[in-house]
């Protein structure tokens, strides 16, 4: 048997049909659905008089549109979209966690929490950050609405076997460098199209040392490097996270699953199409300055001079600086912010909230800065409240919200105003991403928390 990578093993186990000259027909173990990219898919089923083939492998939630405080209710169009989700779930027999349900939350936060995300699976969702679930050694990727309809009807998908790429991060992370900095550091090195056509497998001692939540943060942003998916081989950290969760295998089934999962890691000597090596000790906390996630510098750095960049990057960098209203040479720590957003499928899990709460405990958000914490799910919110984190954030002057995608993507009431500048733990700093004219700087939860207190970009140790 030839040596194979993790991605190849998982892929090959899900091939329903393989014919030369055609993409593979792949079986989908779990289909996650949300209100925004599914209404047209359900409508397509209705028109063609089709049913959902496997409602038992389909889970729906509401996250993109939902308001995160009763003070700002959903607009009428969003309301209609959520009603459509509820109606479609009812009509097609799909389990739904609607607004108000204790399990409701961001689709990529709730599935792992419930034990529905497990090693060796194939998982798809009409959302590009589905790559998050690769942290468990699953192949997980985003699809468009036509493919959502296809999976609902057939539980399969036509797809080309992806290329393989290894990103190996060795040695220990320096103090104050988090999973978010690892992935921002990777994207700054390989670029926003560095992973196109491939599944990136993250390897090496720095990755192994990450918690499951840190691994999810890394895999989440694989799509920002253009990759089809990101994966990390399952190990004891993975198994300990999955064990005993609601939908995890139990008893003898658990043992069978474990036996299977232990066969998944990449075989010794399996070749990758491309390999990148990164020394973890060179990574620092990053802050993005531009309008794509590869345009970052370390927090000790300065806004770059476009003329000093590679010729191919100059024009885009100049345009980005104009949009961001930044001057070349400005120290990153001198940039002040209007808003701090701690949330999103990248960084709104309990560990993220713990790290941030440690930074703000006993301190006050800088006057004039709007700071919000939006837990990734209502279960994360409940856990944080059991730990008293809500009090820490509220006492510091943060707003403590209900779960949702919130200010990550500008399609619910939580948006930036034109020209507003935000330190955000989310994943995309595209023009207008957090609201038309808004300016996004991507950072880790630790830097976001310190920035809320300082009023300008800062590390926790900068705070007096």
């Amino acid at each position, binding site marked *: 048997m030839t040596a194979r990578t993790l991605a190849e093993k998982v892929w090959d186990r899900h091939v*329903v*049909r393989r014919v030369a*000259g*055609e*993409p593979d*027909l792949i*079986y989908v173990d*779990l289909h996650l659905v949300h209100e925004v*990219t599914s*209404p*047209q898919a359900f*409508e397509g089923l209705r028109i*063609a008089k*089709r049913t959902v*083939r496997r409602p038992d*492998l389909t889970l729906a939630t509401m996250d*993109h549109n939902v308001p995160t405080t009763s003070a700002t209710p959903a*607009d009428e169009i969003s309301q*209609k*979209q959520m009603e*459509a989700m509820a109606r479609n779930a009812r009509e097609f027999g799909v389990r739904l966690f609607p607004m108000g349900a204790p399990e409701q939350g961001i689709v990529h936060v709730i599935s792992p929490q419930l034990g529905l995300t*497990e090693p060796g*699976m194939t998982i798809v969702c*009409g*959302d*590009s950050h589905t790559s998050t679930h690769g942290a468990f050694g699953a192949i997980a*990727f*985003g*699809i*468009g*609405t*036509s493919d959502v309809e*296809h999976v609902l*009807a*057939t539980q*399969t998908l036509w*797809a080309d076997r992806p290329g393989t790429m290894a990103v190996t991060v060795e040695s220990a992370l320096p103090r104050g460098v988090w999973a978010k900095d690892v992935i921002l550091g990777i994207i700054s090195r390989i670029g*926003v*199209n560095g992973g*196109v*056509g491939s599944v990136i497998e993250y390897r090496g001692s720095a990755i192994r040392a990450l918690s499951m939540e840190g691994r999810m943060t890394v895999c989440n942003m694989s*799509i920002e490097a*253009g990759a089809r998916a990101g994966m990390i081989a399952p190990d004891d950290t993975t198994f300990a996270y999955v064990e005993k969760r609601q*939908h995890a*295998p139990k008893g003898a*089934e658990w043992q*069978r*699953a474990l036996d*299977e999962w232990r066969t998944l890691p990449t075989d010794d000597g399996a070749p990758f199409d491309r390999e990148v090596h990164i020394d973890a000790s060179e990574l620092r906390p990053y802050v993005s300055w531009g309008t*794509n996630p590869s345009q970052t510098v370390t927090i000790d750095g300065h806004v770059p001079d476009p003329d000093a960049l590679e010729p191919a990057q100059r024009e*885009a960098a100049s*345009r980005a600086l104009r949009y961001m209203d930044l001057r070349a040479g400005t120290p990153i720590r001198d940039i002040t912010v209007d808003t701090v957003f701690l949330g999103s499928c990248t960084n709104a899990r309990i560990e993220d909230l713990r790290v941030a709460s440690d930074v703000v405990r006993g301190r006050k958000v800088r006057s004039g800065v709007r700071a919000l914490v939006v837990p990734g799910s209502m279960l994360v919110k409940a856990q944080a409240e059991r730990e008293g984190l809500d009090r820490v954030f509220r006492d510091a002057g943060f707003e403590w919200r209900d779960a949702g995608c919130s200010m990550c*993507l*500008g*399609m619910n009431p939580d948006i930036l105003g034109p020209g507003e500048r935000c330190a955000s733990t989310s994943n*995309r700093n*595209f*023009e207008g*991403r957090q609201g*038309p004219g808004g300016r996004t700087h991507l950072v880790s939860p630790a830097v976001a928390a310190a920035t809320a207190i300082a009023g300008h970009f800062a590390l926790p140790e900068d705070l007096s």
Partner: protein
Amino acid sequence: MNAVRRVTGRALPLDRANVDTDQIIPAHWLKRVERTGYGAGLFEAWRRDPAFVLNDPRYAGARVLIAGANFGSGSSREHAVWALVEAGFRAVIAPRLADIFRSNCLKSGLVPVEIAADAVAKLLRLVENDPGAEITVDVERRTVEAPGVRVAFTLDDHARARLLEGLDDIAVTLAHADEITQYESTRATWLPSLRD
């Protein structure tokens, strides 16, 4: 989906790399439950700039979009493809298209064309100098032709056939229902289910 054999028409030059789907169609348009009505949202923010190329009357009615590398990156929203199609585009040419965007193109008969960066640059210069120049994207022959340019592009047989015949993917797949059922009988019993 409508079948598409050949696209001939003028082309819009959008000489930028990494154009993300948030630019192609901003998120607030995604609150809608319909599959149509997105044309007006195409490049909504950039369009407010009178100098943006989409506002240039010389390119009105363009059927081909020529863009820089990594076009369609970011969000998986198929609404980006729907908006382009509604605005009259039938083919997108770039050195590289983002994976999910490319896959979405094939669902709506928007021909995804990836050709070498120097060929794209040549086409951009051609239509910048002569907005009336016509470009032909031939799905059957898998070629792009314009005055002084003839270049082949890659499109696998399966995707090509679906474009040429305007096939409904789901109907094709359901013809393999027996194979799907057979596969299901081999799935591991420990795999999670919402019925658990």
